[in-house]
């Protein structure tokens, strides 16, 4: 079960992911990111503080946008991951393919730097 909230702050679309993302709920994450892109956001920050669990279905959603975001010059940064969630990204080597930071401030800063 996952709840997703969005908030626009200083030119960035912040997506709060709350709960667990598995094969039954990853579609909600996918639709939310697609909506953000559709609305024209170029800085998408994913707040993972309240993300308790993620399986490959959720990781696959983030991966599926990597090429598209490069082409469209959209910056996506994930931040605030709990250790066990971060470990899932690390097992697959995704920590090197995605932009991941500890705090919202760092995530914003990176998105700004990459947007220049």
């Amino acid at each position, binding site marked *: 079960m996952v709840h997703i909230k969005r908030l626009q702050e200083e030119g960035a679309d912040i997506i709060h992911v709350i709960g667990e993302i*598995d*094969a*039954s709920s990853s579609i909600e994450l996918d639709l939310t990111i697609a909506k953000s892109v559709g609305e024209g956001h170029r800085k998408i920050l994913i707040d993972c503080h309240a993300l308790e*669990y993620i*399986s490959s279905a959720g*990781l696959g959603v983030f*991966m*599926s946008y990597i090429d598209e975001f490069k082409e469209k010059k959209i910056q996506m940064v994930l931040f605030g991951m709990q250790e*066990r969630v971060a470990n899932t990204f690390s097992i697959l080597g*995704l920590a090197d393919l995605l932009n991941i930071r500890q705090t919202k401030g760092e995530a914003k800063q990176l998105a700004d730097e990459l947007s220049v």
Partner: protein
Amino acid sequence: MSYQFNTGCSLNNLKGIRDFVRKALDQEGINEITKGEIVLALDEMCSNLMIHAHHCNPDDSLGIRITRGDRQHIIFEIIDKGNVFDINQFQTPDLDNLIHQKRKGGLGIRLVKSIMDEVEYLNRDGNTVCRLTKKI
């Protein structure tokens, strides 16, 4: 030690499976990171089975049995009556390919193979058994 859980093949039951595995591992004193990895591997295997062998039919059922092989090994069996979905027959997909093909699947197999020490399949009493072994 022996723990048993049965559930229907709806993806909505994955959370119940994760809770069952976590509680069983709590009893065995497994550390948090290892526990998280095992829960993830079982989730991946069960969701693959539900999707590919049972088309998410909630009337089909699968069972999970957790036993201690010896002090260093825990054995997880996923038992069902579906066709074998043998992950050993799938090459571990290359990450770059997955990105360029924009595929949302394929990562689960990589995860399970990274986390578990052995994945084998057998038939027992007319059931298909997927046996995952984790060295701890």
